[in-house]
């Protein structure tokens, strides 16, 4: 079986959720991830938490990057996390949040299961590095 085991590629879902039409950041991240050799699925704008969950489960992504600039992260992110748990896909998905998130909320999000929150001005390399180091080993 020597043909096995050399095809591993990191799969990411870059998601825009809720009523927030600012997708420049999501596009930049999607492109940077692609150039880093990742396989990127972009959700498109204005997605409901259910749709993000559906995509994350079916695509079996290693990384779920949620971009939120609307301020609704405290409502939307938990819904996504609950959905992932419902489909047994929470454990081995690395959940990242990008956007304008107040410090107090950051701690709360992390407690719920978000691995890291990246604010404005984060270097792309830093995000990519974080993904490489923390991507869960799927069994």
């Amino acid at each position, binding site marked *: 079986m020597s043909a096995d*085991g050399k*095809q591993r590629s990191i799969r990411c879902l870059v998601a825009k959720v809720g009523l927030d039409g600012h997708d420049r950041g999501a596009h930049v991240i999607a492109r940077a991830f692609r150039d880093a*050799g990742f396989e990127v699925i972009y959700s498109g704008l204005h997605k409901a938490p259910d749709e993000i969950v559906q995509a994350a489960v*079916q695509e079996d992504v290693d990384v779920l990057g949620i971009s939120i600039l609307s301020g609704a992260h405290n409502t939307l992110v938990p819904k996504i996390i609950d959905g992932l748990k419902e489909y047994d896909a929470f454990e081995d998905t690395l959940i990242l949040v990008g956007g304008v998130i107040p410090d107090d909320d950051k701690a709360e999000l992390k407690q719920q299961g978000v691995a890291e929150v990246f604010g404005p001005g984060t270097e792309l390399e830093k995000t990519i590095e974080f993904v490489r180091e923390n991507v869960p080993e799927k069994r």
Partner: protein
Amino acid sequence: MTTAETTLVEELLAGKHQALARVITKIENRTPGYREIVSQLYEHTGNAEVIGITGSPGAGKSTLVDKMAKTYRDRGDTVGVVAIDPSSPFSGGAVLGDRIRMASNVGDMDVFFRSMSARGNLGGLSTATADAVKALDAFGKDHIIVETVGAGQNEIDIVRAADTVAVLVPPSSGDGVQMLKAGILEIGDVFVVNKADLDGADRTVQELREMIEMSGGSMTVGGGHHGFDTVEVDVGEEAEEWTPSVVETVATDGEGVENLLETLADHHGYMARTGELERKARGRIANEIRTLLRDDAAGIASDELDRRGGIESFVDRVQAGETNPYDIADDVLGDLRECVEGGGR
């Protein structure tokens, strides 16, 4: 087979979405153990109708697939989709953009949509796709749609493996239609002129019809086909033949999709009646066996090469004028051949 894999197969067969997703990941990554999983699933396959959809970028494949899936769902059927997108030959990365068009089926878990990147691997893509289709089949999907740009032999092989192949042709693609003559015309069971509301659609339909007629005098059934959107198949005839039909759709608003599904079902019926379905399945299995053997044998040869000092050392020797690639191949495979031919079992 480890217990984890057995559990995964059981969960997939029980209808757990995450298990299906994980199995496809293992198939794509060729994770050790994936072969055992596919082997286990094999006996549960053979019930789905598999449709291959191909066409140039921007022809509207994903949008059409979305509407097809929705229409199947409205009838109470379940759907699986495998959408293949190219990957960068440099970084290996990819943006898989087909999912974004699946707007009609969001939140409906009974449409299982999976994006796959071509990953630039040699021939592995057709194996991976065929195995992913098996996983969806074993999961119990009624219809499975495989969507790909169809550029290159690899991707053409993928759609050809489907029971029914639909080729999308955008309007006013005169040159495109010319190109079709070369390869894609032969694989299309149904031609779909999508964006049929645009100028030039009628002409494209006309051109396609002419080409179909020209391509096979023997293929035409009962003196041409003037039925606008359907094909006339004479069921009573002894040697029933399928004339590729031309269907018009406007995927963005779902126009013509019902009709397309009817035509696809007609083709499937024809395949079943005439034994073509069986014949195609046999061909598919034969191909699978050949591909696996070729891959495995190549793996053994490559291991042997490594044991003998690696490919670079052989290149050095050829460059130094000591030997040539043919002698090396004979030499490296010599023991293997002896083992097989000499009855060393």
